[in-house]
């Protein structure tokens, strides 16, 4: 594998990793009450 391709691939994989951790951080936080109300409304229309 050429060095350029390897660099691009590694950078791309690290971007994916950063995105994963960012989303996980946001999803692990408890939901706002507004969001929970919407969820309840969807369950019991």
């Amino acid at each position, binding site marked *: 594998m050429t060095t350029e391709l390897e660099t691009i691939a590694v950078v791309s994989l690290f971007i994916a990793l950063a995105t994963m951790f960012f989303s996980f951080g*946001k*999803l692990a936080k408890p*939901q706002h009450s507004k969001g929970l109300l919407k969820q309840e409304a969807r369950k019991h229309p």
Partner: protein
Amino acid sequence: MDKKTVRSIGKTLLWVAGNTGYGLAPFLFIGFLYLVGINNKTTRIAKEEFHHLVDDGALVLFSCALMGAIAVDLFFARRKFADQMAFVILFIFSSLLVLITVITVYLVLLYTDTTHHLFQDLPRFQGLVIGIAGIFCILAKTILFLKEDQEDPK
């Protein structure tokens, strides 16, 4: 860390161990034969077969399959996250980015390299893909179990 988070992480680790055990059973068995070394002939064949599977990208294939299964699970559970749905989509996108990278590297090698080694020459890249796929599986499954626990009043 609260009790529910610890329980979710525990479930995730059990899930990863179970899936790895089932999914990689033949591979692990060959690895076991290679390590135990019953006799020289068996050890040699097991060693060749083990390296053959690694070189052919069996581990990358397994990690991509596992990552895809969880991404689909997450997609179906997206409504449970209500106002955080955008982050669920972003989370799924990160797994797609890994897949796109693997496909791009494979395509570039296929069209530019004249030899037939392909993944054989990429142990570091393979390791990185397997590691990132593993991290994705652990994070995604933890979030899903955590959500299930939060919904369950018990």
